[in-house]
């Protein structure tokens, strides 16, 4: 999975946002803390299992719970074209 070049990540007014620079969408997508972490991990080239492993250790949460959340975020980002399967 890779990051689409359609979006640019910026930190503005204490928020992390993704800016769509290629399409007609003139808005921005705000990322919460978890989404931003997942975005950064995907950017580094990590796969979903690795991300689940890191986050479950970091927040001391059961892997099954983390896996559900991570997969939801990734699916949403795939739908929006932020991530691309490849």
């Amino acid at each position, binding site marked *: 999975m890779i990051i689409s070049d359609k979006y*640019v990540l*910026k930190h*503005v*007014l204490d928020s992390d*946002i993704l*800016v*769509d*620079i*290629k*399409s*007609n969408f*003139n*808005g*921005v997508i705000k990322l919460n803390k978890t989404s931003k972490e997942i975005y950064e991990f995907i950017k580094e080239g990590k796969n979903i299992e690795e991300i689940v492993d890191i986050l479950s250790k970091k927040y001391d949460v059961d892997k099954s719970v983390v896996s559900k959340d991570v997969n939801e975020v990734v699916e949403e980002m795939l739908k929006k074209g932020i991530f691309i399967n490849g």
Partner: protein
Amino acid sequence: MDSIETTIFDIISAYLTNKEISIDCDFKELYNLSNKLNLTSIVAFVLNKNDYNNTVFEDSILQSVNQYERYLDVRKQMDVLLKDIDYLYLKGSAIAKYYIEPYLRYSGDLDIIVKDKFYDVFEMLIRKEYKCITRTKQECTLINKNGITIDLHREFYLNDKKYEDVFINEFNQTHELSDDYQYIYLVIHTYKHISLYGQFELRPYIDLFYLRDRINKNNVNGILENVGLEKFNIRLNHFLDVLLCKEKPDIYDKLLKKYIIMYAEDHGAKTRVLINSSNKSKIEYYLLRLFQPYELMKYEYPILKKKKWLLPLYYVVRLFKLIHKVLFSSNGRKKYIINEINSNFLNKPVEKELMQEFVEIMGIKSNNK
């Protein structure tokens, strides 16, 4: 509650001085005025910094960020597309990088001046699916599908050869003017807009703030003196010092603030009349608006540079164009024209006298002789 006009200047001062501010005003009115002044992002930035959370202002900042990132992407494309061409980025697109956050300056368009291959560049952009919105022989405005506007210029369009000659050798590999020449361009451009069109804006002073500590003052002052703008430059810097709370405002600074607000309210219908009619009767003013001096006509119709004898014909052409504009333009444009015609400043001696003094203090020479 403070007046909106006072608040907006206080906010800009707070931005420039990086000081805290307490704001007590109607935020809807503040948004409307900052929009008219093209300063919504900066006002939003100050509000956020001082913990005034307002969704409308926050959205405007995010929009600015969006536009600025799109502009950066377009600029990368331009650098590739125009790699064999002499061109320069001007105004906001060149100055934005000096701001605390560049998106605070960017205004949604890209100004490019092309030295020799204006039509080639125009056709390149059309092939890249840019749409032409307006076009004259000297400049055109094109827009891409993402809403980024490119203003393509054939010349500096500063309405005086002595100003344009200043920049004749400034095309370079970075495609931007040096800091000294950015500053000089800012001063000349501001002068042109005030003296010809009564366009009193606040943003040039913020640009000035970021540029003036970067320049070689001796070099810049020398060049501005050569083109007769040293007095104007001094007053621009004085007003900036007033905004920075380093100087107390005099009567002319207070007038300037008034003109800035007036310009924001009606896009200059009144201030244009005021600055161009300050030493004229009503009839003289209307005649000069209809029959501009040759110095201005030759920029509107470049053929007149070589064939001055065609001036009467082009007065007729211009008259028909004006009538067409009045009859078929948008409601906003019609309102501007009607406001200008009806402007009661043509009949107010006190306002005209004040403007005459103001023009003298600012070092602005009358263009309508």
